[in-house]
């Protein structure tokens, strides 16, 4: 029980960062139809944005907010300048969009990753200016700091906000329409390009903030902080069910907790193997994920 609770608490805080990231990834996948392999490196970039602002003297949570906005902007630019043109061209030639874009996103991932290394060094370790956080909760191995509590609250609030935005507002419905069938949405008068910009902005902001929370969870920041988590983020999004914020949260939670438990009970070396195995099995045998009923048609159409 002790191991289980320790594993659970360790997994819980990491899960908050993962959940945010998975929601962002899932949104890009659902609406932009992009399998963004650069997502991990972009999380790192978010972490460094916050680091720069934080080092200049601003408070931690303000730095996090600025990093989120910064990444949102980067994401919009990237979507417009790179991914969108490739998507449109693939469609015009009747080629599979996903095949065209996944290689591009790899190229972008390499560029972002190594730009970070060029600026901040490959293995130099950084940290935020932040005091030691007091323990908020401790019972039988289960430990949670106030910072952890804050991370959980921020994550839950943002995911709930996004979920209700997508579900209850006119704009959110237009987003879902675009995700379902872009051509149909466009001909029904949905301003598809603006919708895409907004979804890039939101997903980018989630990505940046996730990077910051990740640094808070781990304690340090280096050029691989985000990339190391890329497959876990993807696992969260896909196991949960792509295109669904709720699914992404559930998936990320499941993946984080499962990998902590695997680390605790089996071997720390195999921490990620169980999570990755879960991802592969989902990809192969239940591509729509746990919750992804809306995304099912999209995913199954090869």
């Amino acid at each position, binding site marked *: 029980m002790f191991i289980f609770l320790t594993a659970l608490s360790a997994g819980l805080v990491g899960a908050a960062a993962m959940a945010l990231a998975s929601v962002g990834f899932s949104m890009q996948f659902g609406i932009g139809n992009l*399998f963004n392999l650069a997502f991990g490196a972009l999380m790192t970039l978010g972490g460094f944005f916050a680091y720069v602002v934080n080092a200049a003297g601003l408070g931690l949570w303000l730095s996090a907010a600025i990093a989120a906005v910064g990444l949102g902007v980067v994401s919009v630019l990237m979507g417009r300048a*790179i991914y969108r*043109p*490739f998507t449109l061209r693939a469609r015009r030639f009747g080629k*599979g969009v*996903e*095949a*065209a*874009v*996944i*290689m*591009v996103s*790899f*190229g*972008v*991932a*390499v*560029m972002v*990753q*190594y*730009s970070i*290394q*060029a600026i901040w*060094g*490959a*293995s130099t370790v950084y940290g935020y200016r932040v005091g030691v956080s007091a323990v908020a909760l401790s019972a039988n191995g289960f430990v949670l700091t106030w910072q952890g509590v804050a991370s959980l609250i921020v994550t839950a609030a943002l995911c709930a906000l996004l979920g209700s935005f997508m579900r209850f507002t006119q704009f959110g419905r237009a987003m879902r329409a675009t995700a379902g069938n872009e051509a149909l949405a466009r001909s029904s008068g949905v301003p598809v390009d603006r919708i895409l910009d907004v979804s890039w902005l939101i997903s980018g902001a989630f990505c940046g903030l996730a990077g910051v929370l990740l640094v808070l969870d781990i304690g340090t920041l280096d050029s691989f902080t985000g990339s190391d988590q890329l*497959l876990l983020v*993807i696992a969260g999004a*896909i196991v949960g069910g792509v295109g669904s914020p709720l699914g992404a949260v559930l998936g990320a939670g499941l993946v984080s907790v499962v990998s902590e438990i695997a680390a605790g009970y089996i*071997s720390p*070396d*195999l921490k*990620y*193997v169980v999570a*990755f*195995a879960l*991802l*592969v099995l989902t*990809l*192969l*045998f239940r*591509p729509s994920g746990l919750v992804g009923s809306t995304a099912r048609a999209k*995913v*199954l*159409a*090869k």
Partner: protein
Amino acid sequence: MSIYLLTLVVYLMTDVIACWGLNLQFGEAGLYSFGFIVCQAAGAYTVGLLTLGSAAPGQTYFFGAHLAFPVPIICSAAVGGVFGVVFGVAALRRIRLDYQALAMLVIAVIANYVVNGVTGFLDGPIGLVGIPLPVPGFTQAPSGAPGWGYAVVCVPALIVSFWIVWSLSRSPAGRAMRTARSNEAVARATGKSVAKLWLGALFWGGVLGGLSGGLLVAFIGAWAPASWEFTETFVLLTALIVGGVGNVWGAALGALLVPVAFAEGSRYLPAIPGSPDLGPSLEWIAVGLVTVLFLWFRPAGLIRERRRKYAVAAIEEVGEADQSDTGGPPMSAGVASADDVASTGLTSGSAATQPARATAATREVTTSSPVTRGGPPAIEVEDVVVRFGGVTALDRVSLVVPEGSVTAIVGPNGAGKSTLVGVIAGSQRPASGHVRMFGDDVTAMKSHARARHGLARSFQISGEVDGLTVFENVMIGEARHEGEGMLRALAGRWAWRDPELRVTGRAAIEVRRVGLEDRVNAVTSELSGGQRRLMEIARCLVGTPRVVLLDEPMAGVNPRMADAIIEHIRRLKDRGLTVLLVEHELEVVEDVADRIVLLSDGRTVMQGDTGEVLNAEALREVYLGV
């Protein structure tokens, strides 16, 4: 300096072999093998285990042996092939391409973690070290470092690898692979076993991967999980994209430019004081940038996939002989085939014209007897039910297509025609009911098997295969091509030359019949909609089928072309073929069909002779609602 140059040469050779392997899977077969590096790793570990002998104290790996060169290298190729298949099974699941890619990538990552984490298996993160050079007397320099002899050892492997990729690529098997790459449905409908082609590509690609890993590790002497992180696959993919996907020379050029030139080029960059990571980082940024730029500006790579040209002159020669023939007597003319022209560089096929080969055409004659025959119907559908979720698309549909008839399936949109086509062609499995061809129950038979059983079909939309020329698009129609196997391809041209010549000859005849003889070397995107239909009709007939299923062949075709197509359908009947025509327009049907099957709301409303059905109440009810 000498050792540096040697290293460069050996790396180049192993990278070229690896790129060829990946090109077989990714370029030729269209599989997103993002986990390709596993094959290379498997080959490397194999050579390590088979040369090191049993583990010394302090080392923990399983099964060490001391085998003499070249046994470990050969084993590395075999193991690579097996891993290619085992780790590529993800490719056989029908999921989105990016899911496929990711699944394979993650499998490679898991493999790396497992090797890294499990003790007593492959010595974890330390890996195998101290792997000796093979035949040290020959490959070792006096100083003990590797000598140029090792490069010599690599040459035969390079030659064998070249033979594998080159002979697969130019053979009918290569054409079948490219068909499956661009249009799986057409590949299945023309009798290609797509799963078998993919497994073949995975295996032979894996063999090359394993071989390259084996050669590499015997040279560098050590192999650990850090040597084969999944990002290495991307370096090879970038190499393919830069050099040119789908062709042997492009892959080789890519291997020269990307892994070798990029890695080595940076050695000449001056070190930037204070930022040791800047140099290598810039190199990688350049790799990423080059990938993106190539994908945008030159997606075909520096060297484009070669388009095989066929000698039009030779085809015309056959065509003239064909003028007097309306499908009866055997053909007795040959044409220059792909490689006669492509490999000898002839611009006219006449010099390469082959002696007469009549076999293919005589097969056709056997089917051209009169319409009324006592045998079982060509196609019989009995009580077929198909459900999609809660919707019943076909509800106990039965119909009979007599041998030698032109039978039309008509019905308004949503009647279930397309689903029925799928059931007959084998791409849609019915929930219950039976489909028979000439009395044989084919219900459980897959599309490609039905094609080999004598069913040819056209497609309502997207029946063309991009990346193949018009002539090749017709040639793939032979569902029983005896020279299409991969082993035949590897055995060399003599093993598939004769069947290929027969198919070339038949394709030339059919291309001539539909009047596309001056478009043979065009790509399909240069054809009009009507011409594509004609191309498909020609494709249907290359394989001398017994039943031809035409799915709305007149849809979206201009009226003059439609008349031409109707004329072709009539000629099919004259040739004694059974034709099943799926059509929405009644006027078309009235002109050509002997029999009509009327489908509405997933049910057979009536079937009978054309006149009978066209005058029936039921038809007016279905079409006009009165």
